[in-house]
């Protein structure tokens, strides 16, 4: 989404003459970003630097930290991928078909935004715990969701779904019916039309939805801690590890773990943004 806004202006620092106020708005943007985002993050990095490189490295290479990061990023990645597939299908149903209850389903999609994440976590735990209604059904099959990384994924799918639906939906609405008809008259079957015409047009939006759902999942805390079971080295997520360090009054350790998460997230989002910019150009949106 940010790529959409910045791609028009490009990298020039020149004042666009017909749109006055560039200097003013850029100044405002920078001040705002500094106050709201950069200052707190700088504080975080500063605090973690205070413990010294040796202590920092000890935390960064600590087995428990590494496992927690792996759980966090791994489950987030899987959840975001699942959301990309089903979120796109959901958006498709909402955009393409008119059926009774469509508006209600449309409204339900936003609920994960509004619900306190702890409530979602407790509700999901009740359902998926080994003695819960769904968990009890899955148990004989040898599948345990509650208190395992699988449970984390379920919670992250829940909170990430609206991001994919809401980014893909408007782009899908803009796709002209005639484009599909054109593909059909040229002999393309339904599958070919979806694979060669519709999905490529949706790729930038799907990537944005993926990035948002992924970023949200990495930072998620409230819903996950209830369902995860929080077993160190198995189902303990990085945000929880930070809270544990805080409760031990180990502020340096907490800040260091936070800084590592920050770096990883930043690198991943940057890569996704670059892929997105490339795909927008590739799919003819840049021109």
């Amino acid at each position: 989404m940010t790529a959409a806004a910045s791609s028009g202006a490009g990298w020039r620092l020149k004042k666009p003459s017909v749109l006055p106020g560039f200097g003013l708005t850029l100044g405002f943007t920078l001040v705002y970003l500094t106050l709201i985002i950069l200052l707190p993050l700088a504080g975080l990095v500063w605090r973690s630097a205070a413990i010294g490189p040796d202590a920092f490295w000890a935390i960064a290479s600590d087995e428990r930290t590494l496992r927690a990061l792996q759980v966090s990023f791994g489950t987030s990645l899987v959840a975001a991928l699942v959301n990309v597939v089903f979120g796109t299908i959901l958006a498709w149903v909402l955009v393409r078909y008119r059926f009774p209850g469509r508006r209600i389903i449309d409204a339900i999609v936003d609920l994960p935004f509004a619900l306190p994440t702890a409530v979602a976590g407790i509700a999901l735990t009740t359902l998926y715990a080994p003695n819960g209604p769904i968990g009890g059904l899955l148990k004989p099959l040898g599948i345990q969701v509650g208190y395992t990384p699988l449970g984390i994924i379920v919670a992250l799918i829940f909170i990430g779904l609206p991001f994919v639906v809401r980014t893909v939906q408007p782009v899908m609405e803009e796709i002209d019916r005639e484009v599909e008809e054109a593909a059909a008259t040229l002999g393309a079957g339904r599958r070919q039309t979806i694979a060669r015409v519709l999905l490529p047009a949706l790729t930038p939006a799907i990537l944005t939805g993926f990035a948002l759902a992924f970023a949200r999942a990495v930072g998620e805390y409230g819903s996950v801690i209830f369902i995860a079971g929080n077993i160190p080295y198995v189902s303990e997520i990085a945000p929880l590890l930070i809270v544990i360090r805080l409760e031990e009054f180990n502020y340096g350790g907490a800040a260091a773990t936070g800084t590592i998460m920050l770096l990883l997230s930043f690198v991943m989002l940057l890569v996704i943004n670059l892929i997105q910019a490339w795909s927008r150009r590739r799919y003819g949106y840049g021109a």
Partner: protein
Amino acid sequence: MSVSIRNVRKEFENFPALHDVSLDIKTSELIALLGPSGSGKTTLLRLIAGLESPTAGSVFFGDEDASHRSVQERNVGFVFQHYALFRHMTVADNIGFGLKVRPSATRPSKADIRARAIELLRLVQLSGLENRYPAQLSGGQRQRVALARAMAIEPKVLLLDEPFGALDAQVRRELRRWLREIHEATGHTTVFVTHDQEEALELADRVVVMSQGRIEQVGTADEVYDNPNSPFVYGFIGDSSSIPVQVEGDRVLLGDKRLALKGWSAKDGKAQLFFRPHDVEIVEGGEGAILGKVLASRRVAGLRRVELSVEDDGHVEIELPADRDAPVGSTLGFRPQRFKLFPA
């Protein structure tokens, strides 16, 4: 390939869009479907393409009933008003799309598809633009790419839905001439939809005039202009005026005055007299003529266009030589030389 539409009816949720339409299109013919919006012309075009299926009746391609063939199987080239190009593909990929999606047995090689695209680009006079994206082209260029894309699959029929509707007047005229040339060069059976009569009359071998889901008249430009077979066609194609008259035996009465008209036949009773503004002669003295009071007189290029009120409620327009004076308020007598009487 000839196309035959036989007793086709189409209803959209009980709203009838076409009533029992039949039409024969000959091989290599260039046909215009002309009519106001809501006349069913686009629906008829989409039925030929298979983008809609008829409620009743059938569509034949040659001797073969194509009614139950899918769009994909019909092998028609369709050009949309708003181009409908694939924006994420280059011009060459757009043109090659129809060949690329063929099953592997009949699919040409990549190099052949590319060569075909470049050859078609030359035909539509866009050589050198094969690596551009649609967003980098002007409207006229996009429509040419759309046409090249439709022709790439060697269609049985080429169908164009208001192909120049979104373009400005200058480009329209240019593309019109160019489409005629392409048609003569390739010989595709072509059907295009338009609401622009000038476009239809200039371009098409035959014009199909449609109104309210029915075909009113099919004919060459001369036939539909000189011999309109219904009040609608008379009014829709070209300028015309009409006044209510009464037919009694061999006399045509305007009010209680007999009009000196030659060469007509009509049943007794009320009728409408149709004529074109330029098909009139002025009658000095007014014997047997239509008398009108001049409401307005405007100079239009080499002619004078005069608005007259006839018999209080009638309102007609005629054209006079520019040097013939017609002051507002004066009375003028004229007689249509070519006209038609339709029972009212």
